[in-house]
């Protein structure tokens, strides 16, 4: 069964003359238990797709099915939806409430998901993400970037979801901490049979984490390929090849990508 199906998805911001089509006709199918990657430059619409999936962007059209449930544009998602689908955001410095301790963050989330035994569940969540019980009553400013991202992952796991949407979960972190978080995500997926839809601009990270990936550019999907194809440099589209040449961990001469004019004067809503 497919965990996520997107057909002919258009997402736009604004209306009238200032309307911007951020995503044009996206088609993505993610099987249950699969890990799927979206890569592209900033402004390519990859994060926008995740935000539309969680209901943070109501202005979309097309077909969207998550876990067998058909989504309706601009309709508020109910609680059972957020129990099954959760998102981990890019910047753990911005996604945690600065005046709430780890305990408050997790117990409130558990309470809202209607969980029982909140006390033991908080401890379980913390140990699942590799944080000891001593972190329970700390505030975000007392945690390092990697520890904060672990708390954000624990919060996403609180409702025991099937689908995790990961929006550049390691781009704000150091390489050494990135390795720890990526390993944690790999283990969690193996233990819980989670489905991942992961966004990143780092091809090496996506190839490490995902089975298949879609390359996006200016709102359009230019190519869908498997991680093996990417490793073996079997990319057909010149844009994917240019991205590969530009990314670290591969050898090749850097090539200039598209002109910068499409990136200038972007409306604020688009530059997520």
């Amino acid at each position: 069964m497919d965990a996520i199906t997107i057909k002919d998805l258009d997402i736009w911001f604004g209306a009238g003359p200032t309307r911007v089509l951020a995503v044009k006709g996206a088609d993505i199918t993610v099987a249950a238990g699969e890990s799927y990657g979206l890569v592209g430059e900033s402004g390519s619409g990859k994060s926008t797709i995740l935000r539309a999936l969680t209901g943070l962007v109501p202005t979309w059209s097309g077909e969207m099915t998550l876990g067998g449930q058909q989504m309706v544009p601009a309709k508020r998602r109910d609680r059972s939806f957020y129990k099954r689908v959760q998102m981990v955001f890019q910047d753990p410095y911005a996604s945690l409430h600065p005046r709430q301790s780890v305990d408050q963050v997790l117990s409130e989330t558990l309470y809202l998901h209607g969980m029982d035994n909140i006390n033991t569940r908080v401890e379980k969540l913390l140990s699942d993400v590799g944080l000891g019980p001593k972190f329970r009553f700390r505030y975000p400013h007392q945690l390092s970037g990697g520890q904060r991202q672990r708390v954000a992952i624990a919060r996403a796991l609180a409702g025991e979801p099937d689908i995790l949407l990961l929006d550049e979960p390691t781009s704000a972190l150091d390489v050494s901490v990135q390795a720890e978080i990526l390993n944690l995500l790999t283990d969690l997926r193996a233990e819980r049979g989670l489905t991942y839809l992961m966004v990143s601009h780092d091809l090496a990270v996506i190839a490490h984490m995902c089975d298949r990936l879609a390359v996006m550019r200016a709102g359009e999907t230019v190519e869908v390929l498997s991680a093996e194809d990417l490793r073996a440099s079997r990319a057909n589209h010149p844009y994917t090849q240019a991205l590969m040449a530009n990314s670290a961990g591969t050898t090749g001469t850097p090539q200039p990508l598209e002109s910068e004019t499409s990136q200038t004067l972007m409306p604020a809503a688009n530059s997520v």
Partner: protein
Amino acid sequence: MTLLSVKDLRVSFPTRQGRFEAVRGVSFDLGRERLGIVGESGSGKSMTGRAILRLIRKPAEVTASHINFDGRNLLDCSEREMRRIRGSQISMVMQDPKFSLNPVMTVGQQIVESYRMHNRASLKEARAKALEMLNAVSIREPERVMDTYPHEVSGGMGQRIMIAMMLVANPRLLIADEPTSALDVSVQRQVLSIMDGLVQQRGMGLIFISHDLNLVSEFCDRVLIMYAGRVVETCAADQLHNARHPYTQGLLNSLPRLDQPRRHLDVLTRDVAWAEEVL
């Protein structure tokens, strides 16, 4: 020829648990070359860059045997002399253009101001110079960009504008503190090659601070690897992959690689001895 010579630099902060030493005895010499400083966050690499420009405020304390720039010890300069040196002799490009450009001034005004601060020039001359600089950092339609505000340009353009502003007064040393980590891979290369070109043309010295090992090994001539406020290893940039120190090797191995799939990435195990050992 040595442009900058730093000897036994120390930066410490008072905390409730006593003094915390962020930089503990860093020494290096820099000629007209590209020097990379790499390390994790908290390793003291940014503090080293800021200490050279004397940008660290009280209650932090900066000490060194000397920080000689062009035969002058920067530690002995008055605040007034430092203001003349900053920008015109030594410039610094910060990490995120979103936070380092003035949001209520147009891009053009900011570059013009920076130029006129260090050179006696009419508004017209300064404007021409600013346009020339924007051209040099490969910005198309510089006339239009001059009149935009920072929020109207993309991250990559913002960073190039920062570089233009820092280089307009023609400094002799550029300190770049993670100039590309807020940018996409594709834009990263572009910004780097522009910086590289300008550094080569003008014969400037460059200190490039970054946590991206691949980038540094490709872009710099020499690399200092910092851990817990100390330099643990110095090597030629193209030899970085043969680095001997376990910390450097650990950093290199923790990167996911396209050509070597692994189920688990190696996690850096830190040895307490690294922080204490003397080179």
